[in-house]
């Protein structure tokens, strides 16, 4: 298999690093083009070959991890545009703001599935953090819309009437 690949490569590629006639002749005669280094080519291509996939995986995982945080400015803009009135569209927005990070948190492992073979604990933490920030934003929105039961008036309906300790009776004297 390897030889086959080798032969294929020989057929189509010109390996300038190989010592063939021309090159060996010219090597000493002609100076290398500027910024050309024989060893350098060999070295860099070697490195790129080795780290290519793991680097991509890490990059990809960071992309996934940072996606929620990148959404924050967008969400802020949506929040600002939606306003604080209670009507169907702002409520839908708030619903979306809540639903998306919560769904994302539930699908944590699915989100990092493409990068399963490496350890992505740091990215996961960042991802969770980003989603929590989004939930926090949604909560803040609810708060500013007055949807959070944070006031004592919101719990008024559950206040039981006071039990009376004394009973009184009487009135104007009968005559």
């Amino acid at each position, binding site marked *: 298999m390897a030889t086959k690949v080798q032969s294929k490569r020989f057929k189509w590629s010109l390996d300038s690093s190989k010592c063939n006639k021309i090159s060996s002749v010219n090597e000493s005669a002609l100076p290398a083009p500027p910024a050309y280094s024989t060893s350098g080519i060999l070295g860099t291509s070697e490195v790129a070959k080795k780290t290519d996939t793991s680097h991509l995986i890490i990059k990809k995982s960071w992309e996934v991890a940072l996606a929620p945080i990148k959404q924050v400015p967008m969400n802020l803009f949506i929040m600002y545009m939606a306003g604080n009135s209670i009507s169907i569209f702002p409520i839908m927005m708030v619903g979306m703001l809540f639903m998306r990070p919560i769904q994302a948190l539930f699908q944590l492992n699915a989100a990092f599935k493409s990068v399963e073979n490496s350890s992505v604990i740091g990215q996961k933490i960042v991802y969770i953090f980003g989603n929590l920030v989004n939930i926090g934003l949604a909560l803040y929105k609810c708060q500013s819309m007055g949807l959070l039961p944070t006031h004592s008036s919101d719990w008024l309906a559950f206040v039981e*009437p*006071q039990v*009376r300790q*004394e009973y*009184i009776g009487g009135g104007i004297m009968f005559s």
Partner: protein
Amino acid sequence: MLSTRFFKYFVFAYLFNLSSCLYEDQIGKFDWKLNYVGNVKYGIIDSTKRVIVGTEENVVASLSLKNGQILWRQVLENPSVNQIELLHVDKEVTSVSGGKGTWYVRGWDSSSGSLLWEWSFYVENKQHPYWVLSKDQLIHIIPVLGSHLEVTSYDVRSGRNNGKTTKISTPWVSDLSKCKTVGVYWACISGDDSSGQLYYIDLSSATNQVYKVAIHSLIGNPPGHVRLQSLENGEENLFLVRNNVARLVKLQPEMPHVYPYSLSDKAVTVFNGDQPLLLQTIQNSPSKLQLQTIELQDGKENVFEMDYNNEAGIANIISAVCKGSACRVFVKSNDDSVSLLQLPGGKVSWTREEGLSRVIAVEFFELPLSELDASIEHEFDSISGDMLSTFYNRIASQLRQLLVLLSGQQGNSNVGMVRDEFGLHKIIVVVTASGRFYGLDSLTGNIVWSQYLKGVEAYSVLGKLSIPLFAQRSARYSPLMAQCAALMKDKSTGKGVMYTFDPITGQSIGTVERLPYQIEQAMLLPYEDDKHLKGLLILSDKYEVIVYPSTTKPIMLKHANSVFLFTVNSNSKILQGYNLVHSTDNALKATPTWTLNLGQADVISVNVRPSSERVHSQGRVLADRSVLYKYVNPNLLAIATLMEDPIHKQVLSIYLVDGVTGLIVYSAAHKRVAKPIHLVHSENWLVYSYYNARFRRVEFAAVELYEGPTQSNSTSFSSHSVSQLPHPENQAYIFPGTPLAMHATMTERGITNKHILVALSNGAVIEVPWAFLEPRGPHGTMNMEEGYIPYIPELPIPPEATINYNQSIPHVRGIQVAPARLESTCLVLVYGLDLFYTRVTPSKTFDLLKEDFDHWLIAIVLIGLTGASYVTKRLASRKALKQAWK
């Protein structure tokens, strides 16, 4: 500015529209009205068709002789000041009514009741005058004791008088109770026994001749007290009564004629054609009645015996008419009911319960469960909870249900006096001033039972008659009867009388108890004994405490330190609070704990919140979404007093006093204020109405008490733990009407908004939402979003707010409400001359489907949709199958 004003009115109108409205086809559906004429004072049988009556309610009316229905009714001025003094029936009906120097003379068409003519006049002399109507001349007589008579005559139709007042010297008039008008004569006796003289003046003649006869020359000289009595419609006849034997004397010029019959003083004269007859009742046995007729000319006597079932007994014959041997006798009973008796058949044609025109106490009672429902309830009663017997009970009751369903009797169960699903069917116990107890069916207004108590009298509380009713046990505890107690006083001794009865059937429980002491005050204990009976705590005039029935005494002793009592002495103007802590097993003891002296002020009203009232919301939400907690003190008394003041004429003071500790929580004073004053005390607020004499208008003032932004104790309320005084908010409004009675609506759980029912002098009963009266205080920052209605000084009275639509209720005395089991609904009985019952729904019927709710449409749509979904499912599967085969 104009636009904001307009906007505010729009908001008001909108909210009122929300509150209540009735469609034309709903008239009489939830409400009923019983019309009365009042306690009959004058009754004249006009023709064979009708009897014209004048009553103590200041009403002139005509009743059909056939069935007793009101043919026409004219309600005149306020009966507390104005009374009918003369009713004369000729071609037309003439009435003289009035009081305090102002007199109204009116002529009515006797068949239609329309007003033919009317004039009024005012006399300086406030003394009670005598009236004589003779030949179209209305003679007005004012006697001056020991001196003379002032006689003025007016033309009855026009009111024109001849411009002069005749003075007739009558030095023998010493006591006006011995003087009567007799036909065209004005007669007096002097002296108390047979040695006196009978004087009479013929007022129809121009000379006003005075005649004088010695009494002994008329009725002999036996010893005994002699008094003069006039007869109803007696023409020139009068009675001289001695030792309860009456002699008929016919006045005529020179020498009166004396008939030789011994009569009762309640006899009447009747004309049988031209033949005068005397008619009297001889014997009043409970079920038999004897009527005696005596022909005046020849003394022929006739006695008719008839069945007459009225334990109250006949008070007197008002009027009668005879044609040949047939007579129709219009009688009044001691319970104020009037009947028409037919002679010689001896039949009662009809009876009108006119006592119900003077209702003094009202209480609503829940009806018991139907037998079937009760059996289901009992299923869960059994304490022995073993599975087999419970299972057996369940199967048995379900079988019973099935049997009932199959036999088709379910419809009948609603007809009887049983509780309905929503608790709208109740029994209304009503007590009248005449001492009769009635049970009224709340759905129809029919009288279910009635009971008359002899020899008892109502208490007088602030000038109003009152018989307190105490609901000791409701009908909820099925095998046990409901029980209600009423307190009265003995007519002769003034000692307490207690009557306990089952409010559902009217049966008396035990006997009427004559107590050996006078009752000063009473209260219903909040604790039930093992038979679910609440005790009645009575404070006697010797300040002894008695608990009735005695079985409730141990419970009372157990809770002695949480029961408090207060009394208000309207004569000495002292409020006194008592506790019962020092009671022992042997003797209960009321220890005075506080007194409050109101000084010179007259107590107008004392109001305690109804103990059954529940407050659902414990606070008010402010604009910044914090809570202002309500000060809901169940022991708070609202007291209104009116004091004469040299500068401000009259000063109204309002006090809110804690009844347990005597702490004055709030007080306010209004200068230059006059009656009428009404209080409504509910939840944490008080609304009172008064007449502002300075601006000449009726005003409403509302006071609301708040504890503050935090609750000092969120679980229990004790009057003793006062950390700080509640914070009051108040506001006043102009009310464009004259209220006669006010009451707040009450619902089962207190979730529904509160409305204030106001009976107006024009016969309307309106609902005023509490939200309109609610003081906005510094918190109401005109923030429409928070549900505040902007303050405008004048309360509107939109016509839609009238709960009795076009059925006016004259002379309203009071309003009583009761919650239905449906949270949205409150039952209302308005009582005055008439009885009017309806339901109100202050927050609309939020817990009830509308009447026009289309059950069928919804059911059809639902079934259709379900069917369609099955069909389409099948079709879809077939299509999928076909596609798979392709």
